[in-house]
């Protein structure tokens, strides 16, 4: 069970059960769908910008605990961040879930996102954790085509 505990940490279970930023944003500047056709995970990311700053971010949709908790943690982490800061977090997050990050590297910056580190031990689940992040990145890059992590 020990490796399962590293995947399904309290933080993940909590964010799955009570996702943060889980709402439709009526006055969003932009929004985009992300889906994982093999799993059926399907989310929409909403964003409101204030100049270069992500003023507000929210999401709706459904999927597994990993994908939902990751979307929730992401919303909490990048709200009020600049584009560059969000892009940097995206890269760090990506390294974290693909096991390219040393265990202590950037942990301060990653904060609660570090809870997703266990995903790197479960290769089949990396795409679950990444879905919302790839969608967020596409929103920042002004893309209009739905994102798919397959």
């Amino acid at each position, binding site marked *: *069970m020990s*490796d*399962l505990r590293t*995947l*399904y940490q309290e933080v993940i*279970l909590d964010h799955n059960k009570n996702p943060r930023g889980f709402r439709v944003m009526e006055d969003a500047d932009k929004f985009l769908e992300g889906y994982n056709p*093999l*799993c*059926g*995970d*399907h989310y929409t990311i909403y964003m409101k910008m204030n100049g270069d700053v992500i003023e507000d971010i929210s999401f709706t949709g*459904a*999927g*597994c*605990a*990993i994908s939902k908790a990751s979307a929730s943690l992401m919303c909490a982490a990048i709200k009020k961040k600049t584009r560059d800061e969000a892009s940097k977090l995206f890269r760090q997050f990506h390294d974290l879930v693909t096991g390219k990050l040393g265990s202590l590297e950037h942990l301060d910056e990653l904060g609660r996102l570090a809870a997703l580190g266990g995903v790197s031990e*479960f290769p*089949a*689940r990396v795409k*679950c954790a990444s879905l919302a992040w790839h969608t967020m990145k596409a929103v920042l890059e002004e893309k209009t085509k739905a994102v798919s992590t397959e």
Partner: protein
Amino acid sequence: MTIHAHTVSDERGTSLDIAKIRADFPILGQTVHGKPLVYLDNAATTQKPASVIDSMDSYYRTLNANIHRGVHYLSETATEAYEQVREQVGRFINAGSSREIVFVRGTTEAINLVAGTYGLANVGAGDEILITGLEHHSNIVPWQILAGRTGSVLKVVPINDAGEVQLDDFGKLLTNRTKLVSVAHISNSLGTVVPVKTIISMAHDRGIPVVVDGAQAVPHTKVDVQGLGADFYAFSGHKMFGPTGIGVLYGRMNHLESMPPYQGGGDMIKSVSFEKTIYNDVPYKFEAGTPNIAGVIGLGSAVDYLSGIDSGELEAYESKLLAYATGRLLELESVRIIGTAEEKAGVVSFTVGDIHPHDIGTILDREGIAVRTGHHCAQPVMKRFNVSATVRASLALYNTKGDIDRLVRGIQKASEVFG
């Protein structure tokens, strides 16, 4: 609770020696994540007995040559072995002639072959192709492609809340425009056994031919294509304890003879000149290029293996095991079984509270239990039941009550994690 993974005493009441059968499958003896493997993903692919593995190994070691070509010993012997399997498969499904057996890559290619040859030749603008709401994507998409090419229309017979095809609806959807019916024999996502014999008889009353997707049926039940009256019957080697990459299309001789070829190339011709090519006879007309010879040899061994087991005993054993699995799962309050047809075989598809099937799948995996989670290549079925995915445990003759007990314990663990 003490878990006896694979005790023979669990399997009382059957004359099948399940312990002996399990010993025939080398892969079943291993551990996964430190736990004895419980393999419950048989609807995706079955495991292979040593006899199948050995026959392919032996083919490459002692018999490898191209077939239907050489005059040398190896080529003649390989050709004979290949053609013997055709006869064996013909007997196995009670075809009228072994020439009605076409070797293909699998069920998917078999259906695509029918759509691309018989379909293109016989289905025109405004005509209708009829399938059911239970179909696997491989029995939907080839027909959509055909409809797109010909201007014909794909019609779907709805299923009820139990996951059964409604015969009165089927009857209503059979019209003068219906040119082809294609149905699964057993649903891969829900396990529903479809009354194909009745469906074929109803379609034949109106002169409409029927394609049967038998991928899930062949490993679980005795198939008699003439008894069913099927015009085409498609199945895969790898779902019946044979190798991947080989499958069978049975087609009635009158259809196969009238159909244009599928792919062009070597072996499907009698003579070629730049002006005119004479196609080979059935079934070679549909087997262009060097085929999967080792796959055919392995398929032959799989047919041998299945033929050595009494089909009545097999069905009875699997039916009892499915009933046991259904009962044990329903003891868990949070489990909802999707697909409750009266006639079911081999599959139990379910959800657990609001825990996503992929999370269940990961937790079961760490317990050494292999199940399928997702939409099972049957997204319209998932939509019908308003779920995005299910957990699917699918059985084969080597599964035991011990396997089911491990599954139930694993689901309990998942429920604990997600409290």
